[in-house]
């Protein structure tokens, strides 16, 4: 019968082809959403510098938030962003504090320390003082030294500017004085790193503190002091000669799988991190020390 009806034969052969038609969409063809990283500016700098390399390593697009810690960014934002991670929405966070294990456990997160960042002791560029001792710095922030004359400077009152954020976490400004209550009360407490720079710029006799990765502008009239004769460099940090620093890191959910871990791993193993560290005088905490 088929010999007598060649059209029927052709029809029967065509029907299975319809079942495997390419008209049906393959889910794998849909572009994957970006991996979103957010948090403190100072760790954001590292990821932002390494972004092309990290995207190549993970095969995913990266969306990073945290420049100048704007839009509410900061360590807490980094922790919250990491906790939002899901297989369909991969996230991680940037932190500028050494988050303790208890908080990490409570939040279900894992900390990946990346680098140690010098904490600059900044003064106005017009200030003739170039160096302070560690204890002098602490005395100034405590308020026991209140005039530059006492540290070899002009007879001008010292204006202390602080940014005492992440008060519940260790490290950071606590390398200067361990508790907020220890700082002199008649100080100016600013809400952002940018504001810190602005105050130090405006007040010729001010003193403040800021992470080394801050992107200073050429017109910013501020200068970092040497402490005990040591500049805030990675080498001095490594040698333990510079006393004020903090830890930059990334946080991910403990149950995170997939590409976000590739990103973190790529940072930790990246050679480019060394280059970024040299640029910002960071002391990498992963792989081989510079």
């Amino acid at each position, binding site marked *: 019968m088929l010999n007598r009806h060649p059209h029927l034969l052709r029809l029967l052969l065509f029907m299975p082809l319809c079942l495997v038609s390419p008209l049906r969409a393959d889910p794998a063809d849909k572009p994957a959403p970006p991996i979103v990283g957010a948090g403190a500016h100072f760790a954001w700098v590292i990821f932002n510098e390494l972004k092309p390399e990290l995207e190549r390593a993970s095969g995913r697009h990266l969306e990073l938030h945290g420049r100048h810690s704007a839009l509410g960014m900061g360590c807490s934002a980094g922790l919250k962003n990491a906790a939002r991670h899901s297989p369909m929405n991969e996230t991680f966070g940037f932190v500028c504090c050494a988050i303790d294990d208890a908080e990490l456990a409570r939040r279900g997160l894992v900390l990946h320390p990346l680098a140690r960042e010098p904490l600059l002791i900044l003064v106005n560029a017009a200030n003739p003082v170039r160096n302070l001792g560690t204890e002098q710095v602490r005395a100034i922030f405590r308020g026991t030294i*209140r005039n530059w004359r006492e540290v070899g400077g002009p007879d*001008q*009152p*010292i*204006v*202390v500017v602080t940014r005492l954020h992440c008060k519940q976490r260790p490290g950071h400004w606590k390398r200067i004085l361990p508790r907020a209550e220890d700082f002199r009360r*008649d100080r*100016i407490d*600013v809400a952002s790193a940018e*504001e810190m720079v*602005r*105050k130090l710029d*405006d*007040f*010729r*006799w*001010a003193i403040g503190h800021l992470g080394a990765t801050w992107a200073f502008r050429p017109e910013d009239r501020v200068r970092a002091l040497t402490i005990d004769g040591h500049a805030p460099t990675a080498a001095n940090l490594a040698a333990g000669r510079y006393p004020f620093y903090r830890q930059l890191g990334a946080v991910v959910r403990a149950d995170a799988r997939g590409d976000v871990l590739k990103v973190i791993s790529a940072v930790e193993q990246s050679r480019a991190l060394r280059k970024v560290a040299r640029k910002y005088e960071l002391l990498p905490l992963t792989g081989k020390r510079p």
Partner: protein
Amino acid sequence: MHSYRVKLLAYTLALLVLLVASLGFTYRYVYALIDEEGRQHLAAMATLLHSHLEAERLDDLRNAKIVARYPRVGEYLFAVVEIGTEPEPLRILYEREFRWMPADRFLILSRDNRILVGDDAADLALQVRNARHRRPEGTFYFYNRRGLQHVAYAPIYYQNRFLGTAAIGRVLDRRWLREQPQNRNGVLFLSYGGRIIDSARTALAGLPIDDGATTVEGAAHRYRLTRLQLLPAVGDVPVLWLGLDETALRDRLDRHRRIIFLIAGSSALVILLFGLLIIRQFTRPLSELVAITREVAEGRLPELPKSTRQDEIAVLANHFADMLQALRRKEEEVAQARAELQKTATTDSLTGLYNRRHLGEVFPKLLARARRQGSSLFGILIDLDKFKPINDTHGHICGDRVLERFAARLREHSRANDYLFRMGGEEFLVLTETGDRAGVVALAEKLRQAMATLRVACNGQTLGFTISCGVSEADPRLDTTASLRDMLSRADAALYRAKQSGRNRVCVDGEAPCKPIEPDADTG
């Protein structure tokens, strides 16, 4: 008629007065309306300006609060006040952050009354220092050598500590006056000490003004004023005035007045023309009627042409014309009747000659005329000879026919200006006025001869007769009655002589003998 015309004129004038009065009232009403509108406009402008001033006041206060509550200001002031650093950063901050503010003067006064920001601001600082003792924040106006100023101030706190006061001030100068909403007819100005110290229009500056003024004049403009309160004020501050230019208002009124005058003039002219037309239309036919009635009253009955119009006066005039026509007809009938009567009274019905009564009427006139002309009046008294036998023989009808033919022949042969009378029976008189006595005698002779040849057919017979004539001249020296009586008497005497002389002859008074009978004459 005059009173009627006067009434119409009075009505027209009354109408004009009414028109002018209504237009005057309209003008007054428009004036009041525009005046009220101006008043309301001024009030509305004042309200608007009040709102604007209040908005500016609140804006200034809000700006002062923006400065005072700006966190960095607190921080910087803290550094200055609490830490004791130099105030320069505060000034830099102020320059950087608040240069945009619409203010002429800035001040940050520390709690210990140090001027931290503000150049040459000692006066402002003094006022703010006093003001913040009364209220921690607020606004006020004050006046000094810089001019009228509005100041807003607010306290600066940092860490719940009062550190100082931020104040901003605006100088309310001419530029400010010009920037206020006052529209094109309004003007804002400031007065102090009874004199205008500044104005949005320079022409007003320096003019005197007292506090209760309602108007001010300057540079050919007059302004209606309202006074605006500048509160709260510290010390003695200038008075802010809002003026509404009444010149524009007056111009509008003048425009209205010109229009009203134009309407009034043209309307008055139209009404006057209509009035005159009405007067003419009504009074002309009435005047004509009055003139005609006057003529009628004077005894004339003039022709009154009929009108084709159908109005009441035309109908009245036509009726009057009809009445005149009827009167004329009646008068003609009366005249005719009178003529007939006259004729009957003065003529003899048989012969048609004047009767004796008429002699008494015309004689004085003829005598007077003769006297005027220096001529004489002659009477020819004629009597038919032996007439009684004719009557007796041939009957009275034949006698009457003889008399008729005699009269006809007498008319034929007498002159046109002679008067012919039948004195009674067969006696007749011819009165003729002439200076020629002989001519009169010749006339009498001619008549005698004419009668002698006359033949009258009656009852199949032919009758002939003769006449005797006595001629006399009226004596002009006598009065008319006496002269007539005298003339007739003497003519009668001459006639008598002619009869006595044999009849058929002419005798002249005072002449003897009588004129003899011509040979061919028949005797009667």
